[in-house]
């Protein structure tokens, strides 16, 4: 077994017992990246030199007997919309292609403080707007289970990095499913924590009231390790939640007795793959078999939620992206007056999906439309929160699919924004409600593609999500969750699409 095939927890243990050095671990991942990433394209920027430097420092520290963080020496990949000091942070956009932040995001700083070597910055849909990572201005990322297919998005790069053994852990961001949907499509575990649990400081804003940094990992325990590191109040983010952070790795023994689980029944399952629904039913049955009280919960507002989301998120985005005007940083077009210069900079610097959302958002906030679109959507958001509150009176946990379909083909939905938006339908209402939500592998489609389950709990109940995910892991058996990647060995090269 290669080092890159291990979980973060295993690597942590091996490092602490000095079975391996961090330099060896990092080398293994770097070799794996060399081997597969020219094909999969998970990374926008790779940082092998600094990763090895950090690893070397950690190894010397360990030799000196320094008290190190459990994740010290365990490498990590970071989505390229999380600011990293002196390391290009592009958001997969032309407009930030050469932008180098002079500061670290709080989550990035935490990773560095713990001594985790950073392997690089991962690909995403431009400014995290998308569900397939095809909206990256640089290149699409491929799904390691089938190179003709998308990895999901927007954290597609992070999901692929973990799924293909290029990183044991990755940070991502989730606005309307951007961690959970790609995790589901790539067969890995992805957590969107409670809104405010992880500081957003340094996360390049897409839709501020929805954005949340989260984790991508091979399993729930690894997720807990990384969450321990990044969760907590940050004085630099006034929307981050106060209060102590529990040890998420504690109390994860699978236990489902008496757990009240609501299986989500959607008002419409149009567009759902029947095998997805089947997988959810099987998972529910498994829970019931192990002592959980399983019932049905109807989230009747899901479709409205999707509409509300596609007004709220673009509205906030239209404002958040105003700052890219070519004056202080980023791409700058020529223009002999400010209006021309601004418009050209933005017209040339943003890709089509960003322009679409900026246009929708600008329109929804503009005089005469605010009440009918933006305000109405915010009211619908309140109704959705109420629906969740009601559901959580009856249930401790909601169970559903993390994506209505397995990974779809590259190019399949890119020309039809509405179809693309529908691929987030399972994820969006959790985001609107601000509750924690986790995607865990749930099985395989007959096509061989992974399918994900989505678990949702009350605010700050991340532990319950992790514990339940552990339950599914325990009953998963010996099924390999690693994609074969035979196509690469067969000389897939770069002509697969």
């Amino acid at each position, binding site marked *: 077994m290669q080092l890159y095939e291990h979980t973060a927890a295993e690597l942590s243990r091996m490092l602490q017992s000095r079975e391996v050095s961090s330099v060896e671990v990092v080398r293994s991942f770097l070799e794996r990246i060399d081997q597969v990433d020219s094909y999969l394209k998970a990374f926008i920027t790779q940082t092998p030199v600094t990763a090895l430097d950090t690893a070397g420092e950690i190894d010397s520290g360990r030799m000196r007997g320094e008290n190190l963080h459990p994740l010290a020496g365990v490498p990590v990949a970071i989505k390229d919309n999380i600011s990293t000091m002196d390391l290009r*942070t592009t*958001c997969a956009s032309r407009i930030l292609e050469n932008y180098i932040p002079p500061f670290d995001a709080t989550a990035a700083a935490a990773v560095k403080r713990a001594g985790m070597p950073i392997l690089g910055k991962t690909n995403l849909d431009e400014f995290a707007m998308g569900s397939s990572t095809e909206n990256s201005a640089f290149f699409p990322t491929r799904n390691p289970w089938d190179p003709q297919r998308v990895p999901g998005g927007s954290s597609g790069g992070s999901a692929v990095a973990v799924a293909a053994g290029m990183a044991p852990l990755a940070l991502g961001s989730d606005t309307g499913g951007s961690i959970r949907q790609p995790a589901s499509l790539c067969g890995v575990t992805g957590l969107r924590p409670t809104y405010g649990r992880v500081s957003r400081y340094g996360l390049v804003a897409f839709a501020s009231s929805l954005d949340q940094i989260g984790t991508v990992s091979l399993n729930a325990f690894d997720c807990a390790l990384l969450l321990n590191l990044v969760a907590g109040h940050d004085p630099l983010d006034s929307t981050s939640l106060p209060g102590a952070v529990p040890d998420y790795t504690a109390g994860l023994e699978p236990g489902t007795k008496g757990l009240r689980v609501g299986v989500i029944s959607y008002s419409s399952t149009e567009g759902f793959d029947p095998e997805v629904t089947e997988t959810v039913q099987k998972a529910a049955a498994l829970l019931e078999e192990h002592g959980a009280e399983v019932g049905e919960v109807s989230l009747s507002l899901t479709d409205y939620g999707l509409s509300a989301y596609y007004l709220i998120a673009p509205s*906030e985005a239209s404002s958040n992206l*105003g700052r890219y*005007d070519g*004056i202080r940083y980023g791409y700058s077009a020529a223009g002999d007056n*400010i209006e021309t210069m601004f418009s050209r900079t933005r017209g040339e610097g943003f890709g089509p999906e960003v322009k679409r959302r900026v246009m929708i958002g600008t329109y929804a906030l*503009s005089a005469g439309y605010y009440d009918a679109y933006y305000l109405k959507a915010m009211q619908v958001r309140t109704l959705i929160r109420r629906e969740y509150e009601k559901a959580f009176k009856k249930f401790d946990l909601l169970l559903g699919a993390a994506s209505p379909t397995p990974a779809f083909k590259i190019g399949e939905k890119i020309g039809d924004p509405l179809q693309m938006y529908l691929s987030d339908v399972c994820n969006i209402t959790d985001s609107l409600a601000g509750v924690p939500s986790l995607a865990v592998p749930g099985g395989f489609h007959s096509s061989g593609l992974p399918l994900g389950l989505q678990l949702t709990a009350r605010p700050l109940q991340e532990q319950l999500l992790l514990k339940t995910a552990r339950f599914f892991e325990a009953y998963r058996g010996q099924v390999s969750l690693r994609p074969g990647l035979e196509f690469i060995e067969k000389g897939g090269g770069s002509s697969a699409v």
Partner: protein
Amino acid sequence: MQYEVVIGLEIHVELMTASKLFCGCSTTFGGEPNSNCCPVCLGLPGSLPVFNRRAVELAVTAALALNSEVQLRSRFDRKNYFYPDLPKAYQISQYDQPLGRGGYLEVELTGGKRRVNLERVHLEEEAGKLVHAGDSIIGAGHSMADYNRAGIPLLEIVTAPELHSGQEARTFLEDLRSLLLYSGASDCKMEEGSLRCDANISLRPEGSSKLGTRAEVKNMNSFRSVELALDYEVRRQEQVLSEGGTVVQETCHWDEAKKQTITLRGKEGSSDYRYFPEPDLLPLVLEKTFVENLAHQLPELPATRRERLQEQYGLEKEEALLLTSNRELGDFFEAAAKQYPGYRHLANWIQGDLLYQLRESGKRLNEIEPGLLVDLLLRLDEGRINRPVAKELLAEMVQSGIDPKEAIKERGLEQITGRDNLLPVIEEVIANNPEAVDNYRQGKKKALAFLVGRVMAATEGRADPAELNRLLQEKI
């Protein structure tokens, strides 16, 4: 036709905090461009705002001083527009849930004291500053941005359209400035831009209740220019109307050099700011006790103090007005008045010589010890020094911080009085100036002044002038 002038003001004042509204950068004026900047005030991607408690306290204090109803819950919104001095392309401001609703200021205007109502008082962030290559903005090849100012806390105060001339607007502003200085919220330096004023101005036929079409006047950089600009705009609109034309809604700039307003843009250029609640900031919720504590700490405000000074010290209205024009001056007067009963005499010395010397020397009032002025005045009253010496000593006291008491003793500046002390000098001057004595005796009164001057010179200015006059006349 007679027209009534209707003016509403929109005032911005920078609050006196050490750090900016949403980040820890210094608010110090001047300095190297862009040296007081961080990811937050530069609007770098991923940066987030965090409220400065002091800014909230000062805003609430100012709102209380302005009799505005402080809202225990208020909200911050984004005002979206593109401009190179606005790093995030939105200003964090308050829209429909401002910190203070309503309010008023009692102002002494033509026709007596009047209450000028306010619509709102709210907190927002300052933008950066643009410097233009060449003499003027228009036509400059390019501009340069300095974001040191970006993010400084700004209080916006909006009046009802209840002012009726440039003079009234100026008086209101001066009173507002003094009130804000008293409350300690702002240093209100118009020349440094920490107090700025825009005006909406329209004309309507006398007796009509419907507001006319307004023009918005900007770029008025002193109290005087507010008055001049508004008076100019009144004349301009009067002319348009009297020629049968209509006033177009527009924004104009006051051109200080040309002493006229210049149209910037018409209504069609007006913006759609797309306000919406700032998702990065939770609502501002104030404890009732927080507001009550600030209300208790509110100092006596100028209007109240003015009346009290008149009553307590028997001052004239004009004197009280001057002494309350800023808080320090009133404090100085009252500190000195505790030790000196000649209140009006004291007031005269303060508003005359003391203020003159402060202006001349560039010294600040808080560098002067009130007790020293009292010592000086007491010695003058007792006749131990004369008035010219007192004036000289005051000047030195302000400029180089001497103790007048000590100086009188050390330099022997005490007044020379008494027949025995003065007569020998007088007789010597008479003997040495026979021509002047003759002239005086032939009726040339001017000659007496000459002789007085000679005696003063011989006594280094210390002779008691009244006694000297009497003795000199007696001798010749």
